[in-house]
């Protein structure tokens, strides 16, 4: 068959989801597809979705791992609602993910895996591929991916087991063909990864990748190919970055701009581990990492480093945050700078370790005993974690306070292109230590920021004691009721003083009107996309994303007053919504989702339309 019969259909954006067993290499395939697409360039966003079991029994529902890529010719702010194409490597992956595929969507199936045993493990009584309804509803492309991959390697010295492991590259090659993507970047990747140590594996993967690609070219497997044009991207130098990477880099950048070494201490926990892993490879940036014995020790080590004059940072996820509470209180009362990153996940307790949620906002605000306010900054996209981390370092130093950064599993593991900032554009964050020529008063305050000045061990003549007991301004332990009242007020006023440095809220749409959609953190992409399309359809709706959760932006109250209705979509039971209602006496409406998954644009759109029509 000649190539000319394959006509490309132009698409504005496409969502592809790769799904298979957790040993099938779906995350690698998704990453490759992403890396290839960013260089086109396309606008892109990704969402890896993997089970908490490292290797659940092969072929089971529990073992299904997936990776979703959304690429487009204009702005792409989310990994996409429903996939336009679903690549499934076994029946379990089909069982888990088929419900999401758009009607008429492309369904690429590895038929070799549809054996009676695998069907049974996926709880299929009959083979779904023989169901006429399925074939009618979707554009099904059945391919013996396993068989063709092994056949492509018939001359290869690899063992049969090794040959079977290349099948993900066959699926990738074929998908590249469908979307007219180049295969060269993946060949480069394979060579850089395997060519040196195991050239036969590199060779096999490349052969199978090409075999997948050529299958499309030489056979009439599908009539449809799709083209996503180059995106109109702002000129500049870009890299692809995940949320956890961006968080790590933002912390290093903050420390560099503060002129102090970074000491990070963490305890492995999903999905925050990536921050520790990333930083451990940056030792030559004067970064010291300590893998502590537990979550409590991790923050203790970080606080000790802050006390000694360095940038102390720890990162964790929900359950770890519970354990760090007492130390956050100590950091707060000793007024030491400290950054605590919480990469939120589904809770409570162990909950859904690998799934995303935004249910730790109230914990960040109030999850300590005593009157214990801390500034809170929330990242709103994977690359935005850089700015959030940098900002947290700024606030921690300028206000001598612990600062909580809220990220989430969706941001941490998701990735997107990032326009690399010019380091000269990043502000200087340095804050001087106490002057040894002056008498030292531990809790003397900067009149503007209300922060105290640190004297660090090793500074001559500034010896003093700090600790968890309430102190008076001279740093002496005090049980005086008036002093406790005053110090409590000062600590709160200091956090409130951060508001003076918060930039005005960014609005999609107008500053007044019928409906304001207000969100925080990782829902930014879905909310903005929904509101932009609704506005294009002529609806009077605007939106904003609140980066500073404590203190809240000074212009937020006036903004809320300008709208007839306020909708607050959150991946929790309405935590910010409750704060807005209490703080601003506004009749805000919550849109709550607690399924371990991000919002779909359509979910927000539907609720907005409902409210506008009420």
């Amino acid at each position: 068959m000649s190539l000319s019969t394959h006509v490309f259909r132009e698409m504005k954006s496409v969502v592809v989801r790769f799904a298979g067993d957790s040993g099938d290499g779906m995350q690698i395939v998704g990453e490759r597809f992403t890396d290839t697409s960013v260089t086109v360039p396309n606008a892109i966003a990704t969402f890896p979705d993997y089970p908490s079991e490292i290797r659940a029994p092969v072929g089971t529902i529990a073992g299904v791992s997936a990776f979703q890529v959304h690429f487009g010719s204009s702005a792409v702010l989310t990994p996409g609602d429903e996939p336009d194409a679903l690549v499934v490597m076994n029946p379990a992956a089909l069982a888990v993910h088929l419900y999401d595929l758009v009607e008429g969507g492309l369904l690429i199936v590895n038929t070799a895996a549809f054996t009676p045993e695998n069907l049974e493990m996926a709880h299929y009584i009959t083979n779904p591929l023989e169901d006429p309804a399925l074939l009618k509803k979707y554009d099904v492309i059945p391919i013996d991916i396993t068989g063709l991959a092994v056949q492509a390697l018939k001359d290869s010295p690899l063992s049969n087991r090794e040959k079977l492991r290349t099948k993900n590259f066959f699926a990738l090659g074929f998908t590249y063909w469908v979307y007219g993507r180049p295969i060269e970047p993946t060949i480069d990747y394979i060579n850089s990864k395997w060519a040196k140590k195991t050239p036969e594996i590199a060779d096999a993967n490349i052969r199978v990748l090409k075999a997948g690609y050529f299958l499309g070219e030489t056979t009439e497997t599908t009539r449809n190919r799709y083209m996503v044009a180059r995106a109109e991207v702002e000129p500049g130098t870009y890299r692809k970055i995940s949320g956890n990477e961006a968080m790590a880099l933002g912390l290093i950048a903050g420390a560099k701009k503060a002129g102090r070494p970074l000491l990070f201490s963490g305890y492995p926990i999903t999905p925050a581990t990536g921050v520790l892993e990333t930083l451990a490879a940056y030792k030559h940036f004067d970064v010291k990492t300590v893998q502590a014995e537990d979550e409590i020790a991790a923050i203790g080590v970080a606080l000790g480093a802050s006390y000694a004059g360095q940038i102390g940072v720890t990162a964790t996820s929900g359950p770890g945050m519970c354990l760090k509470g007492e130390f956050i209180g100590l950091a707060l009362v000793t007024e030491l700078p400290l950054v605590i990153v919480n990469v939120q996940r589904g809770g409570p307790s162990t909950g859904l370790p690998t799934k995303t949620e935004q249910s730790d906002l109230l914990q960040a605000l109030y999850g300590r005993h005593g009157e214990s306010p801390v500034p809170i900054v929330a990242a709103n996209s994977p690359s935005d974690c850089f700015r959030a981390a940098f900002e947290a370092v700024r606030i921690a130093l300028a206000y001598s306070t612990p600062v909580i950064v809220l990220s989430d599993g969706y941001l941490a593991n998701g990735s997107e292109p990032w326009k690399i900032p010019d380091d000269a554009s990043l502000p200087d964050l340095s804050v001087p230590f106490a002057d040894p020529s002056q008498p030292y008063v531990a809790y003397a305050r900067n009149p503007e920021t209300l922060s105290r000045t640190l004297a660090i061990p090793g500074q001559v003549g500034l010896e003093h004691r700090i600790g968890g007991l309430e102190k008076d301004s001279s740093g002496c332990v005090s049980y005086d009721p008036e002093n406790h009242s005053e110090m409590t007020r000062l600590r709160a006023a200091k956090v409130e003083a951060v508001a003076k440095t918060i930039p005005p809220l960014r609005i999609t749409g107008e500053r007044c009107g019928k409906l304001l959609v207000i969100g925080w953190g990782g829902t930014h992409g879905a909310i903005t996309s929904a509101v932009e399309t609704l506005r294009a359809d002529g609806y009077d709706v605007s939106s904003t994303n609140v980066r500073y959760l404590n203190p809240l932006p000074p212009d937020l109250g006036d903004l809320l007053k300008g709208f007839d209705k306020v909708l607050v979509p959150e991946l929790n039971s309405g935590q910010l919504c409750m704060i807005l209602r209490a703080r601003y006496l506004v009749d805000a409406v919550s849109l709550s989702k607690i399924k371990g998954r991000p919002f779909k644009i359509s979910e927000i759109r539907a609720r907005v339309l409902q409210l506008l029509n009420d």
Partner: protein
Amino acid sequence: MATETPTISPTPELTRKDFVTTNDVRWCPGCGDYAILNSLQRTFPELGVPRENFVVVSGIGCSSRFPYYMETYGFHSIHGRAPSVATGIKVANPELSVWIVTGDGDGLSIGGNHMLHLLRRNVNVTVLLFNNRIYGLTKGQYSPTSPVGTRTKTTPTGSIDNPLNPLLFALGAEATFIARTVDNNPKHMVETFKAAHEHQGVSFVEIMQNCVIFNDSAWDPVYGKENRDDQMLFLDAGKPLLFGKNKDRGIRLNGLTPEIVDATTAAPGDILVHQPEQSSPLYSQLLATMGLPEFPTPVGVIRQIQRPTYDALIHTQVQDAKAKRGTGTWQELLHGPSTWTVA
């Protein structure tokens, strides 16, 4: 000492008075902590470390008020967690002389996990564990070192859990320096503190300390006037294990079991000679487990071996990374392994 060489010597002749704060000391009259405080204030000026390079870190409990009474840098942290704070301080700045003051509850109960990891990592700090076998600050509940049968308000019919032996715990964690001293012997305390300071690596010192209110005279069977000659075995490296007023009794091994012999009649070479540097833990374990009622209680340096310190190794890794890859630049940080440009 190599890592604690003073960078500057503003007051070469420090005295005890330089380490006394103006704060009123608030322990109960007669508390063993006073003697320990006094001994540490006498030790610090003799270590050749400038005053500003000391940091005393504590957790919570009676002993943990200690930093407020030492005129240097001090951090009174939270219950059981001083080892983590101290690790952060020492890793951040290995030039500092970091001292952890803790108790049997703070260090071995709520903070047992942190103590374990501080010791096995060999962070170059000194731990002073005040062991009074009782919770004092909360007014007299049994602690993890209280003997079985201890009657307190929470154990009115006697405690039932087997107590922890602090030295054995430290040995189990492979601490590189393990010592014991007593609160009624200032000279021995000062000597032990100095030895602990000089050790390169983690130093664990158990101090048998008297709580005059809730567990008075708990250690009298060991160090009381009438008992101490017979019940304390002072350890001295290279010297035989002798005790008694006239040093006329000694410890020898019968197979793997220690026994007491008459030193005046024992065969030459029969009596064990103290070798704290032995890397095998068997000998250290023998000393750590010796005590009432059968044996005298060893005091002094039980074990001292050499192993690289955690704080030094972290710095070496950072320096090696810089030497190998060059100090990180903005370009490398922000650009990463691969970029693309949109014109």
